[in-house]
Protein backbone atom coordinates (compact mmCIF):
# COMPACT_ATOMS: atom_id res chain seq x y z
CA UNK A 1 0.00 0.00 0.00
CA UNK A 2 1.28 3.39 -0.97
CA UNK A 3 2.56 5.42 1.91
CA UNK A 4 0.37 8.37 2.85
CA UNK A 5 3.32 10.68 3.30
CA UNK A 6 4.80 9.76 -0.07
CA UNK A 7 1.52 10.54 -1.74
CA UNK A 8 1.33 13.88 -0.04
CA UNK A 9 4.82 14.79 -1.20
CA UNK A 10 4.04 13.79 -4.76
CA UNK A 11 0.85 15.82 -4.85
CA UNK A 12 2.74 18.86 -3.61
CA UNK A 13 5.43 18.42 -6.23
CA UNK A 14 2.98 18.04 -9.10
CA UNK A 15 1.14 21.08 -7.82
CA UNK A 16 4.25 23.21 -7.99
CA UNK A 17 5.00 21.86 -11.46
CA UNK A 18 1.54 22.93 -12.53
CA UNK A 19 2.15 26.37 -11.13
CA UNK A 20 5.33 26.69 -13.18
CA UNK A 21 3.82 25.42 -16.41
CA UNK A 22 0.79 27.65 -16.13
CA UNK A 23 3.04 30.66 -15.49
CA UNK A 24 5.13 29.75 -18.52
CA UNK A 25 1.97 29.50 -20.56
CA UNK A 26 0.94 33.01 -19.55
CA UNK A 27 4.38 34.39 -20.38
CA UNK A 28 4.42 32.62 -23.73
CA UNK A 29 0.95 33.97 -24.53
CA UNK A 30 2.04 37.53 -23.82
CA UNK A 31 5.23 37.12 -25.84
CA UNK A 32 3.33 35.45 -28.64
CA UNK A 33 1.10 38.45 -29.08
CA UNK A 34 4.09 40.76 -29.29
CA UNK A 35 5.98 38.49 -31.66
CA UNK A 36 2.96 38.13 -33.87
CA UNK A 37 2.51 41.87 -34.09
CA UNK A 38 6.17 42.30 -34.97
CA UNK A 39 5.93 39.65 -37.67
CA UNK A 40 2.88 41.30 -39.16
CA UNK A 41 4.41 44.78 -39.02
CA UNK A 42 7.49 43.59 -40.89
CA UNK A 43 5.51 42.05 -43.71
CA UNK A 44 4.96 45.20 -45.86
CA UNK A 45 8.70 45.84 -46.15
CA UNK A 46 9.46 42.29 -47.21
CA UNK A 47 6.61 42.34 -49.71
CA UNK A 48 7.69 45.56 -51.35
CA UNK A 49 11.30 44.52 -51.35
CA UNK A 50 10.33 41.35 -53.14
CA UNK A 51 8.25 43.26 -55.67
CA UNK A 52 11.07 45.67 -56.40
CA UNK A 53 13.58 42.87 -56.73
CA UNK A 54 11.17 40.99 -58.94
CA UNK A 55 10.89 43.86 -61.40
CA UNK A 56 14.64 44.41 -61.33
CA UNK A 57 15.32 40.76 -61.92
CA UNK A 58 12.76 40.71 -64.73
CA UNK A 59 14.43 43.59 -66.53
CA UNK A 60 17.86 42.08 -66.03
CA UNK A 61 16.73 38.53 -66.74
CA UNK A 62 19.26 36.37 -68.48
CA UNK A 63 21.90 39.08 -68.76
CA UNK A 64 25.37 37.65 -68.32
CA UNK A 65 26.48 40.33 -65.94
CA UNK A 66 23.80 39.51 -63.36
CA UNK A 67 25.28 39.23 -59.87
CA UNK A 68 26.02 35.75 -58.64
CA UNK A 69 23.64 36.10 -55.73
CA UNK A 70 20.81 36.37 -58.23
CA UNK A 71 21.97 34.03 -60.97
CA UNK A 72 23.84 31.51 -58.82
CA UNK A 73 27.39 30.33 -59.18
CA UNK A 74 26.45 27.91 -61.90
CA UNK A 75 26.94 24.99 -59.58
CA UNK A 76 25.02 23.46 -56.70
CA UNK A 77 27.78 21.37 -55.26
CA UNK A 78 28.13 22.98 -51.86
CA UNK A 79 24.87 23.47 -50.02
CA UNK A 80 24.49 25.64 -46.94
CA UNK A 81 21.58 24.92 -44.63
CA UNK A 82 20.61 27.53 -42.08
CA UNK A 83 18.57 26.03 -39.25
CA UNK A 84 16.45 28.36 -37.14
CA UNK A 85 15.58 26.99 -33.71
CA UNK A 86 15.03 28.35 -30.24
CA UNK A 87 17.69 28.79 -27.60
CA UNK A 88 15.49 27.09 -25.06
CA UNK A 89 13.41 23.97 -24.91
CA UNK A 90 10.02 23.19 -23.40
CA UNK A 91 8.18 24.16 -26.53
CA UNK A 92 6.74 20.90 -27.79
CA UNK A 93 7.76 19.75 -31.23
CA UNK A 94 9.12 23.14 -32.26
CA UNK A 95 12.82 22.30 -32.21
CA UNK A 96 12.37 18.63 -32.97
CA UNK A 97 10.62 19.22 -36.27
CA UNK A 98 13.40 21.54 -37.47
CA UNK A 99 16.02 18.99 -36.47
CA UNK A 100 14.15 16.28 -38.31
CA UNK A 101 13.84 18.39 -41.47
CA UNK A 102 17.51 19.41 -41.43
CA UNK A 103 18.58 15.82 -40.93
CA UNK A 104 16.39 14.68 -43.78
CA UNK A 105 17.65 17.38 -46.15
CA UNK A 106 21.28 16.79 -45.22
CA UNK A 107 20.79 13.09 -45.78
CA UNK A 108 19.21 13.59 -49.19
CA UNK A 109 21.89 16.05 -50.29
CA UNK A 110 24.60 13.67 -49.20
CA UNK A 111 22.95 10.87 -51.10
CA UNK A 112 23.24 13.14 -54.15
CA UNK A 113 26.95 13.40 -53.29
CA UNK A 114 26.70 17.11 -52.52
CA UNK A 115 28.72 18.81 -49.83
CA UNK A 116 26.59 19.98 -46.94
CA UNK A 117 27.35 22.81 -44.54
CA UNK A 118 25.11 23.77 -41.68
CA UNK A 119 24.80 27.10 -39.91
CA UNK A 120 22.81 26.99 -36.70
CA UNK A 121 20.80 29.95 -35.51
CA UNK A 122 19.65 29.14 -31.99
CA UNK A 123 21.13 26.62 -29.64
CA UNK A 124 18.76 23.70 -29.69
CA UNK A 125 19.33 22.15 -33.10
CA UNK A 126 23.05 22.40 -32.54
CA UNK A 127 22.74 20.52 -29.24
CA UNK A 128 21.06 17.65 -31.00
CA UNK A 129 23.05 17.56 -34.23
CA UNK A 130 26.53 18.53 -33.11
CA UNK A 131 27.80 14.96 -32.90
CA UNK A 132 26.17 13.70 -36.05
CA UNK A 133 27.25 16.68 -38.17
CA UNK A 134 30.36 17.83 -36.38
CA UNK A 135 32.29 18.26 -39.63
CA UNK A 136 29.50 20.03 -41.45
CA UNK A 137 28.81 22.62 -38.77
CA UNK A 138 29.97 26.06 -39.82
CA UNK A 139 28.97 28.10 -36.83
CA UNK A 140 26.27 28.64 -34.27
CA UNK A 141 24.64 31.98 -33.57
CA UNK A 142 22.75 32.31 -30.30
CA UNK A 143 21.21 34.91 -28.11
CA UNK A 144 19.16 36.46 -30.91
CA UNK A 145 15.94 38.14 -29.96
CA UNK A 146 16.23 37.83 -26.19
CA UNK A 147 13.57 40.48 -25.98
CA UNK A 148 12.62 41.89 -29.33
CA UNK A 149 14.26 41.00 -32.58
CA UNK A 150 15.99 43.95 -34.14
CA UNK A 151 16.76 44.26 -37.78
CA UNK A 152 20.43 44.78 -36.98
CA UNK A 153 20.60 41.25 -35.56
CA UNK A 154 19.22 39.81 -38.77
CA UNK A 155 21.69 41.97 -40.67
CA UNK A 156 24.56 40.38 -38.74
CA UNK A 157 23.44 36.90 -39.74
CA UNK A 158 23.02 38.08 -43.31
CA UNK A 159 26.48 39.66 -43.30
CA UNK A 160 27.98 36.39 -42.22
CA UNK A 161 26.20 34.51 -44.99
CA UNK A 162 27.16 37.13 -47.58
CA UNK A 163 30.77 36.97 -46.46
CA UNK A 164 30.83 33.22 -46.85
CA UNK A 165 29.16 33.46 -50.23
CA UNK A 166 31.64 36.06 -51.47
CA UNK A 167 34.47 33.82 -50.28
CA UNK A 168 32.99 31.08 -52.43
CA UNK A 169 32.33 28.77 -49.51
CA UNK A 170 28.96 27.59 -50.80
CA UNK A 171 26.78 27.71 -53.90
CA UNK A 172 23.23 27.38 -52.64
CA UNK A 173 21.80 28.64 -49.37
CA UNK A 174 18.55 27.33 -47.91
CA UNK A 175 17.01 28.40 -44.62
CA UNK A 176 14.85 26.06 -42.59
CA UNK A 177 12.48 27.68 -40.15
CA UNK A 178 9.03 27.34 -38.61
CA UNK A 179 6.47 29.48 -40.39
CA UNK A 180 3.83 30.73 -38.00
CA UNK A 181 0.37 29.49 -38.85
CA UNK A 182 -1.41 29.66 -35.52
CA UNK A 183 -0.54 28.99 -31.91
CA UNK A 184 -1.30 25.35 -32.54
CA UNK A 185 0.40 24.83 -35.88
CA UNK A 186 3.77 25.80 -37.18
CA UNK A 187 4.87 24.78 -40.62
CA UNK A 188 8.46 23.77 -41.18
CA UNK A 189 9.51 25.69 -44.27
CA UNK A 190 12.68 25.27 -46.27
CA UNK A 191 13.28 28.41 -48.34
CA UNK A 192 16.06 28.94 -50.83
CA UNK A 193 17.71 32.35 -50.46
CA UNK A 194 20.74 32.10 -52.71
CA UNK A 195 20.42 32.13 -55.65
CA UNK A 196 17.35 34.27 -55.25
CA UNK A 197 14.18 32.97 -56.85
CA UNK A 198 12.16 35.93 -58.09
CA UNK A 199 8.50 35.60 -57.22
CA UNK A 200 6.29 34.43 -60.04
CA UNK A 201 5.02 37.33 -62.11
CA UNK A 202 1.73 38.37 -60.59
CA UNK A 203 -1.02 38.63 -63.15
CA UNK A 204 -4.13 39.66 -61.28
CA UNK A 205 -2.75 42.80 -59.66
CA UNK A 206 -5.05 45.63 -60.68
CA UNK A 207 -2.60 48.38 -59.80
CA UNK A 208 0.01 47.31 -62.26
CA UNK A 209 -2.04 46.28 -65.23
CA UNK A 210 -2.61 49.79 -66.48
CA UNK A 211 1.06 50.62 -66.46
CA UNK A 212 1.83 48.67 -69.57
CA UNK A 213 4.89 46.48 -69.69
CA UNK A 214 6.75 46.09 -66.42
CA UNK A 215 10.20 46.64 -67.81
CA UNK A 216 9.80 50.38 -68.42
CA UNK A 217 11.44 51.34 -65.15
CA UNK A 218 14.08 54.01 -65.15
CA UNK A 219 16.99 53.01 -62.95
CA UNK A 220 19.13 55.43 -61.06
CA UNK A 221 21.97 54.47 -60.75
CA UNK A 222 22.36 51.49 -63.13
CA UNK A 223 20.50 48.22 -62.56
CA UNK A 224 23.68 46.40 -61.62
CA UNK A 225 24.54 48.93 -58.96
CA UNK A 226 21.08 48.86 -57.43
CA UNK A 227 21.09 45.09 -57.48
CA UNK A 228 24.46 44.97 -55.76
CA UNK A 229 22.89 46.99 -52.93
CA UNK A 230 19.52 45.37 -53.01
CA UNK A 231 20.51 41.70 -52.97
CA UNK A 232 22.37 41.64 -49.64
CA UNK A 233 19.63 43.84 -48.28
CA UNK A 234 17.01 41.39 -49.43
CA UNK A 235 18.92 38.57 -47.80
CA UNK A 236 18.84 40.43 -44.50
CA UNK A 237 15.14 41.11 -44.89
CA UNK A 238 14.35 37.46 -45.63
CA UNK A 239 16.38 36.37 -42.61
CA UNK A 240 14.69 38.99 -40.47
CA UNK A 241 11.34 37.65 -41.59
CA UNK A 242 12.43 34.09 -40.84
CA UNK A 243 13.60 35.12 -37.39
CA UNK A 244 10.31 36.82 -36.63
CA UNK A 245 8.25 33.90 -37.90
CA UNK A 246 10.42 31.53 -35.92
CA UNK A 247 10.05 33.60 -32.75
CA UNK A 248 6.29 33.77 -33.09
CA UNK A 249 6.17 30.03 -33.74
CA UNK A 250 8.35 29.32 -30.72
CA UNK A 251 6.08 31.21 -28.38
CA UNK A 252 3.02 29.65 -29.95
CA UNK A 253 4.45 26.16 -29.61
CA UNK A 254 5.51 26.82 -26.04
CA UNK A 255 2.09 28.16 -25.14
CA UNK A 256 0.39 25.05 -26.51
CA UNK A 257 2.89 22.71 -24.90
CA UNK A 258 2.56 24.40 -21.53
CA UNK A 259 -1.21 24.40 -21.80
CA UNK A 260 -1.10 20.64 -22.27
CA UNK A 261 1.38 20.22 -19.45
CA UNK A 262 -0.82 22.24 -17.12
CA UNK A 263 -3.81 20.12 -18.02
CA UNK A 264 -1.87 16.89 -17.55
CA UNK A 265 -0.62 18.04 -14.17
CA UNK A 266 -4.22 18.79 -13.19
CA UNK A 267 -5.32 15.28 -14.19
CA UNK A 268 -2.43 13.80 -12.30
CA UNK A 269 -3.28 15.75 -9.16
CA UNK A 270 -6.88 14.53 -9.36
CA UNK A 271 -5.70 10.93 -9.66
CA UNK A 272 -3.22 11.24 -6.84
CA UNK A 273 -5.73 12.94 -4.56
CA UNK A 274 -8.17 10.11 -5.19
CA UNK A 275 -5.54 7.52 -4.26
CA UNK A 276 -4.56 9.56 -1.24
CA UNK A 277 -8.13 9.71 0.06
CA UNK A 278 -8.71 6.01 -0.58
CA UNK A 279 -5.54 5.11 1.24
CA UNK A 280 -6.42 7.39 4.13
CA UNK A 281 -9.85 5.80 4.39
CA UNK A 282 -8.32 2.31 4.28
CA UNK A 283 -5.96 3.19 7.10
CA UNK A 284 -8.82 4.45 9.26
CA UNK A 285 -10.91 1.36 8.54
CA UNK A 286 -8.01 -0.88 9.35
CA UNK A 287 -7.40 0.87 12.66
CA UNK A 288 -11.09 0.58 13.57
CA UNK A 289 -11.09 -3.15 12.80
CA UNK A 290 -8.04 -3.59 14.94
CA UNK A 291 -9.62 -1.74 17.87
CA UNK A 292 -12.93 -3.60 17.58
CA UNK A 293 -11.39 -7.02 17.23
CA UNK A 294 -9.12 -6.18 20.16
CA UNK A 295 -12.16 -5.26 22.32
CA UNK A 296 -13.99 -8.42 21.29
CA UNK A 297 -11.08 -10.57 22.28
CA UNK A 298 -11.25 -9.35 25.89
Amino acid at each position, binding site marked *: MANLKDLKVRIASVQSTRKITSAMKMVAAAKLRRAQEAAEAARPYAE*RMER*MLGSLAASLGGVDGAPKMLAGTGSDQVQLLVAFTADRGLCGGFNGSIVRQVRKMAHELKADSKTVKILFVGRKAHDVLKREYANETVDMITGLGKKNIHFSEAAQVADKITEMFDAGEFDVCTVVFNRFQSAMTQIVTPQQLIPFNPPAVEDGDDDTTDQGPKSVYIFEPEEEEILADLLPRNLAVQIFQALLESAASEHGARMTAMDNATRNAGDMIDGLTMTYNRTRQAVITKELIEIISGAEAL
Partner: protein
Amino acid sequence: MAERLEFELVSPEKLLKSESVEMVVVPGAEGDLGVLPGHSPLIATVRPGVIDIHESGTVKERIFVAGGFCEVSPERCTVLAEEAMPVTAIDKAAAEKRLEDANQAWQKADDATKAKAEAERHVAEAMVAAAG
Protein backbone atom coordinates in the same frame (compact mmCIF):
# COMPACT_ATOMS: atom_id res chain seq x y z
CA MET B 1 -5.16 69.65 -57.86
CA ALA B 2 -7.24 66.53 -58.08
CA GLU B 3 -4.44 64.08 -58.68
CA ARG B 4 -2.67 62.82 -55.60
CA LEU B 5 0.30 60.60 -55.02
CA GLU B 6 0.20 57.61 -52.68
CA PHE B 7 3.29 57.90 -50.54
CA GLU B 8 4.50 54.95 -48.49
CA LEU B 9 7.44 54.89 -46.13
CA VAL B 10 8.41 51.43 -44.88
CA SER B 11 11.15 50.38 -42.48
CA PRO B 12 12.10 46.75 -41.88
CA GLU B 13 10.25 46.82 -38.58
CA LYS B 14 7.02 48.35 -39.78
CA LEU B 15 5.00 50.43 -42.21
CA LEU B 16 5.70 53.96 -41.02
CA LYS B 17 3.56 56.05 -43.27
CA SER B 18 0.99 55.49 -45.93
CA GLU B 19 -0.85 58.56 -47.07
CA SER B 20 -1.94 60.58 -50.02
CA VAL B 21 0.29 63.59 -50.71
CA GLU B 22 0.80 66.27 -53.33
CA MET B 23 4.52 65.90 -53.84
CA VAL B 24 7.51 64.30 -52.13
CA VAL B 25 11.19 65.09 -52.52
CA VAL B 26 13.33 62.01 -52.02
CA PRO B 27 17.11 62.23 -51.59
CA GLY B 28 18.24 59.94 -54.42
CA ALA B 29 21.78 58.62 -54.61
CA GLU B 30 22.41 60.82 -57.65
CA GLY B 31 20.47 63.87 -56.60
CA ASP B 32 17.14 64.80 -55.08
CA LEU B 33 14.07 63.49 -56.82
CA GLY B 34 10.88 65.49 -56.78
CA VAL B 35 8.04 63.06 -57.27
CA LEU B 36 4.66 64.27 -58.47
CA PRO B 37 1.67 62.17 -59.57
CA GLY B 38 2.23 60.73 -63.03
CA HIS B 39 5.98 60.26 -62.62
CA SER B 40 7.59 57.67 -64.89
CA PRO B 41 8.26 54.32 -63.25
CA LEU B 42 11.60 54.53 -61.50
CA ILE B 43 13.73 52.55 -59.11
CA ALA B 44 16.49 54.40 -57.31
CA THR B 45 18.76 54.05 -54.33
CA VAL B 46 18.27 56.58 -51.58
CA ARG B 47 21.16 58.28 -49.80
CA PRO B 48 20.98 59.32 -46.16
CA GLY B 49 19.04 62.55 -46.03
CA VAL B 50 15.65 64.13 -45.56
CA ILE B 51 12.39 63.35 -47.33
CA ASP B 52 10.21 66.43 -47.73
CA ILE B 53 6.48 66.00 -48.03
CA HIS B 54 4.99 68.97 -49.85
CA GLU B 55 1.40 70.08 -49.47
CA SER B 56 -0.04 73.05 -51.39
CA GLY B 57 3.33 74.59 -52.09
CA THR B 58 4.90 74.32 -48.65
CA VAL B 59 6.82 71.61 -46.84
CA LYS B 60 4.39 69.88 -44.53
CA GLU B 61 6.57 67.22 -43.04
CA ARG B 62 10.27 66.36 -43.03
CA ILE B 63 11.45 62.81 -42.35
CA PHE B 64 15.04 61.72 -41.98
CA VAL B 65 16.02 58.42 -43.65
CA ALA B 66 19.32 56.58 -43.36
CA GLY B 67 19.41 55.36 -46.93
CA GLY B 68 17.39 52.68 -48.66
CA PHE B 69 15.52 52.25 -51.91
CA CYS B 70 12.73 54.04 -53.67
CA GLU B 71 10.21 52.74 -56.16
CA VAL B 72 8.08 55.19 -58.10
CA SER B 73 5.09 54.45 -60.29
CA PRO B 74 2.68 57.02 -61.78
CA GLU B 75 0.35 56.83 -58.79
CA ARG B 76 2.61 55.65 -56.02
CA CYS B 77 5.95 56.36 -54.39
CA THR B 78 7.33 53.70 -52.03
CA VAL B 79 10.44 54.33 -49.97
CA LEU B 80 12.10 51.36 -48.29
CA ALA B 81 14.16 53.02 -45.59
CA GLU B 82 16.78 51.40 -43.44
CA GLU B 83 15.99 53.72 -40.59
CA ALA B 84 13.57 56.62 -40.46
CA MET B 85 12.42 59.28 -38.03
CA PRO B 86 10.80 62.71 -38.20
CA VAL B 87 13.37 65.48 -38.34
CA THR B 88 11.85 67.05 -35.24
CA ALA B 89 12.57 63.87 -33.28
CA ILE B 90 16.30 63.97 -33.95
CA ASP B 91 18.34 64.76 -30.90
CA LYS B 92 21.14 66.96 -32.15
CA ALA B 93 23.54 66.05 -29.34
CA ALA B 94 22.96 62.34 -29.91
CA ALA B 95 23.47 62.78 -33.65
CA GLU B 96 26.74 64.61 -33.08
CA LYS B 97 27.86 61.88 -30.71
CA ARG B 98 27.04 59.32 -33.34
CA LEU B 99 29.05 61.23 -35.91
CA GLU B 100 32.02 61.38 -33.57
CA ASP B 101 31.80 57.63 -32.88
CA ALA B 102 31.46 56.94 -36.58
CA ASN B 103 34.50 59.07 -37.35
CA GLN B 104 36.55 57.23 -34.79
CA ALA B 105 35.40 53.87 -36.07
CA TRP B 106 36.22 55.00 -39.57
CA GLN B 107 39.76 55.94 -38.64
CA LYS B 108 40.32 52.62 -36.92
CA ALA B 109 38.66 50.55 -39.62
CA ASP B 110 40.72 48.21 -41.78
CA ASP B 111 39.97 47.33 -45.39
CA ALA B 112 37.25 44.84 -44.53
CA THR B 113 35.21 47.15 -42.33
CA LYS B 114 36.03 50.39 -44.12
CA ALA B 115 33.01 50.44 -46.40
CA LYS B 116 30.68 49.88 -43.49
CA ALA B 117 32.28 52.55 -41.33
CA GLU B 118 32.16 54.95 -44.24
CA ALA B 119 28.45 54.32 -44.72
CA GLU B 120 27.78 54.87 -41.03
CA ARG B 121 29.73 58.13 -41.21
CA HIS B 122 27.58 59.37 -44.07
CA VAL B 123 24.42 58.51 -42.15
CA ALA B 124 25.62 60.35 -39.07
CA GLU B 125 26.72 63.34 -41.13
CA ALA B 126 23.34 63.56 -42.82
CA MET B 127 21.63 63.24 -39.46
CA VAL B 128 23.58 66.15 -37.98
CA ALA B 129 22.89 68.21 -41.09
CA ALA B 130 19.18 67.43 -40.84
CA ALA B 131 19.06 68.36 -37.17
CA GLY B 132 20.98 71.59 -37.60
